């Protein structure tokens, strides 16, 4: 297992290099002079020159690329024009917020998605099944940020139950965390819950028709044990492979959802950076999120190997 983990870690390196190359290339997409765009219309020529020097745009491309990677290997993603703070520092400061909300949202997604998917499969072709299918379809069709706005209208403006914005640390103030993070987490969870429900439902239907389920019943096991042990263990396999996709949607959704709920995480940091054309921050943020995701995916893969004996032995 440890060897497999190490092997996967090594395999990640070329992909990481390619991903950082894309992040580097992003600034080259800026039409015209990036320094002028970043400086805005009120910038003096001296200020623009300062930006240009700060980003190293005055040097030849290969030198820029080299120093980009040299800095990257030391964990240096440049300096934010907006905050005057190193990008890495700003990202690390806010990463816990985003990760906590993403984790909360992931838990919601898995609990809701699995529960509804399993119930729909067990009540196949009944009204319950159809209601779940409609719910799942709506989930994948509603824009998450719009759902967030609608929740603000209902729970904050009309009912006054939850605050429209803010954040509290879950370890220091769990109630405050639940009050502030629930709406963002639900908004983020909606899309993947719909996806997961559909996949769990169809996998469960497939698994329940398998021969080994009939064997489990022929052994005289109670139906609850047949479903919750024999069937569920097999349903978990595609669910785990989906976690990577779920996390990816969660993290990209956080930009807009955190902006709406004014959550002080990476998402709102990037949202502001986009509005203000803070390219080092955009570039660093994208790279940071992509790398985080690759690491999380690695964890998911190891989990997958733990759940599916066929993979574990084959590798």
């Amino acid at each position, binding site marked *: 297992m440890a060897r497999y983990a190490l092997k996967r870690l090594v395999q990640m390196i070329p992909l990481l290099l390619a991903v950082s190359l894309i992040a580097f290339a992003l600034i080259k997409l800026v039409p015209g002079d990036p320094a002028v765009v970043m400086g805005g219309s009120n910038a003096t020529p001296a200020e623009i020159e300062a930006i240009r020097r700060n980003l190293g745009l005055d040097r030849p491309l290969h030198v820029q690329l080299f120093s980009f990677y040299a800095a990257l290997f030391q964990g240096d993603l440049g300096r934010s024009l907006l905050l005057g703070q190193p990008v890495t520092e700003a990202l690390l400061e806010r990463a816990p917020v985003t990760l906590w909300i993403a984790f909360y949202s992931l838990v919601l997604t898995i609990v809701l998605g699995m529960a509804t998917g399993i119930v729909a499969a067990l009540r196949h072709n009944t009204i319950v099944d159809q209601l779940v299918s409609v719910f799942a379809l709506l989930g994948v069709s509603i824009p998450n940020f719009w759902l967030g*706005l609608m929740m603000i209208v209902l729970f904050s403006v009309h009912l006054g139950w939850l605050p429209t914005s803010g954040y509290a640390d879950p370890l220091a103030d769990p109630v405050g965390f639940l009050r502030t993070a629930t709406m963002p987490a639900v908004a983020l969870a909606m899309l993947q819950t719909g996806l997961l429900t559909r996949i769990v439902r169809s996998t469960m239907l497939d698994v329940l028709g398998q021969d080994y389920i009939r064997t489990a019943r022929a052994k005289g096991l109670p139906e609850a044990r047949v479903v919750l042990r024999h069937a569920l263990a097999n349903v978990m396999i595609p669910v785990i492979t989906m976690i990577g996709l779920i996390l990816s949607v969660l*993290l990209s959704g956080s930009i807009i959802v955190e902006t709406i709920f004014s959550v002080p995480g990476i998402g709102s940091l990037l949202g502001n950076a*986009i509005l203000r054309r803070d390219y080092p921050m955009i570039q660093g943020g994208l790279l940071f999120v*992509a790398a985080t995701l690759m690491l999380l995916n690695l964890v998911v893969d190891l989990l997958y190997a733990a759940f599916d004996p066929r993979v574990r032995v084959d590798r």
Partner: protein
Amino acid sequence: MSAADLAGRPGLLARLTPGPAVRRLLRNRAFVAGLLLFGTVAILALLAPWISPTDPNRMAVRFRFREPSWDFPFGTDNLGRNMVSRVLWGGRLSLEIGLWVVMLNAVFGVVLGAAAGYFRRLDGPLMRIADALMAFPAVLLAIGIAAALGPSVATVVIALSVVYVPRTARVLRASVMVVREQDYVQAARAAGAGDGRILFRHILPNCMAPLIVQLSFVFAYAILSEAVLSFLGLGAAPTTPSWGILIAEGRSYIREAAWLTVVPGVAIATTVLGLNLLGDGLRDVLDPRLKVDA
């Protein structure tokens, strides 16, 4: 056409004639529901210039913040603009962007996917590039690209295409690789057909089903992502409203005029729901093995 071509492909003619597939589609409830929903939205958006009660940008300050009523079914905004007109015109732009993304996906997805799937030497490099692009979350990369290019409709189209073309190419590559190994392709090769002829006459026509299914989902994602980009200020200018821009504008008045946000959101959800149903139906009928790929 050689004898081997004819003998080896009994199913091809049947698949190319629309009859049975169309009949099966029309019996598929998801497809029909999706067609009705999306068709209605598309027709309304198409007819926007003729059926809009007013110009979408015509301001009438004395009608500011009118709640939805008989005169203004969707209400009016902070400048007294009629939301019916704005939603219809917004739909026109949103669907137009979605359609561009779908067309670019069809062209580049097929070219790159077929190249990777058919020419083994191109497969490695092309797929590594796709892997790197797909390591970023879809919407996040689109945001990054759009942020670099600066706000415009073309930006949105380009950003979303860069994000979704690798995914479409992957779907096509997979089906090309399956079809490439079929007996009738081997037979055609043995009969001396060249790469171009094999690819265009024998392989690609048999990869259309997964492509069509994929494109219907790309359309749905494009509508959703366009809303996100526009909401973040990376899309069209406010004078040419898309649904995402309408939501962004409505957000400022969400306490006193929630309808400004509700209506465009419902429009997006209806469209995407229709496209998802359409895609589900197409997949069930044309290509039952295909799985959801986001």
